[in-house]
């Protein structure tokens, strides 16, 4: 039996308003599309990336660094998708 695949990655929050409720929602929506589990760490705090409430407790503002650690059969793609979302500024324009 092999360990589930693991992946990690990081991204800086670039949108001006940071990880408020809507970005948390967007991130969870993407994470839920994957089988793997993923944890986000920010400034010493950790959150389940499949829980909006968990993510909201991070209060990750503009410039914060998010570290993703995923495990599961699709872990690399999961991390790539989440990093891409964060780096895109969650598609927010302000």
């Amino acid at each position, binding site marked *: 039996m092999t360990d589930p695949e693991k992946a990690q990655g990081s991204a800086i929050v670039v949108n001006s308003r940071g990880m*408020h*409720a809507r970005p948390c*929602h*967007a991130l969870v929506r993407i994470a839920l599309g994957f089988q793997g589990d993923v944890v986000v760490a920010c400034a010493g705090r950790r959150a389940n990336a499949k829980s*909006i*409430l968990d993510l*909201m*407790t991070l*209060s990750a*503002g503009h410039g914060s660094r998010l570290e993703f650690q995923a495990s599961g059969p699709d872990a690399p793609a999961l991390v790539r998708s989440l990093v891409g979302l964060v780096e895109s500024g969650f598609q927010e324009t302000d």
Partner: protein
Amino acid sequence: MLSPERTRIDFSQQYKPAACSVSLSAGTKEECLRELAQLLVDAEQLPKRQVAPLQAAFLERERVASTGVGAGVAIPHVKLGAVKETVLGFGVHKKGVEWSAVDGEPAHIFFVVVRPAAASGLHDPRRHLELMQWIAHLARVQDFRRFALAAQSGKELVELLREMAQA
């Protein structure tokens, strides 16, 4: 001047019993948002003429993304030009309402946040982030959700919020 980061606000003190309801009964999300707007007006937190604009703001926010955050909790939160200070409400819907939440579960517990459209001496946007973080912490607590669902009055809900804030 005190730095906002150095003082911790007890947000539970901003909840008024009249703006907290244990008897939400709307059958749809749209009706429930109107019920929540009416709750704030009936509690004299907003002028009567703001029911429709507030409901419209709620609906627009839901159109962008559902405020259903899972675990039976929704956090309808909007900006409204008519308010000078943040207005808070809290509601419990025993039966539950379909809210397009991320986990697909109906919403039973509602944290309502109506804040001014612009920063001012009465509204510090950084405090808003702290408020949302406080709400998220609270909503994650299973016991809090259980007690909220069992509360019999707005006064009991406020007491619960204040007890949790002290924990």
